[in-house]
């Protein structure tokens, strides 16, 4: 059974803290994604990685960075968390272009 796991379901951080969100997939997928989901705005793509050590900015990359040192792991980093980064963060992976995405359970991050 395919599986995408995220390091935390709920996370509370203070403004200015460095935050790491980790995502691991066990399907040997090439592509991995980070989205954030906010009410009324749907899913918005933060970053995309099409291969190990390769990344591309999505629609809202400001304030975020990513790391993909191994194929199965894709990390999202908030260098200095701000309250407007309070959101649900969703990781996804897929085998390649035009294939379905598999999502993790999400991390609900609150920045106070």
């Amino acid at each position, binding site marked *: 059974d395919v599986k995408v796991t995220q390091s935390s379901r709920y996370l509370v951080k203070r403004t200015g803290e460095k935050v790491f969100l980790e995502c691991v997939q066990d399907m040997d997928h090439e592509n991995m994604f980070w989205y954030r989901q906010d009410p*009324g705005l749907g899913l918005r793509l933060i970053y995309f990685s099409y291969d190990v050590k390769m990344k591309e900015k999505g629609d809202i990359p400001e304030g975020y960075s990513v790391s993909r040192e191994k194929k199965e792991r894709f990390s999202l980093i908030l260098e200095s968390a701000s309250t407007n980064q309070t959101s649900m963060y969703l990781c996804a992976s897929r085998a390649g272009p035009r294939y379905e995405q598999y999502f993790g359970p999400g991390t*609900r991050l609150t920045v106070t």
Partner: protein
Amino acid sequence: SQQGEEDPQALSIQEGENATMNCSYKTSINNLQWYRQNSGRGLVHLILIRSNEREKHSGRLRVTLDTSKKSSSLLITASRAADTASYFCATDAMGTYKYIFGTGTRLKVLA
């Protein structure tokens, strides 16, 4: 605006009834996908329909695609309370690597 726009935004039906939700998009696509999201959880892939397909079935789900109208519909037959969730369409625009999601239809099935 979003590539995929679902309609209606919210839908409430009785158990056993059919639920239909629609998705419109703007540009040519390779494929269109439907996903379900239960409250506070990740998205689950339901069905993928390619641009050269017109209809696809999976269990109680039926998806149609009309590329001339740039629209798709998802029909859930004989709905159950467990179908209560948000449903999203995602389009894979030609020439891009990413999928664009709409804002979803919130379906509530009353027992």
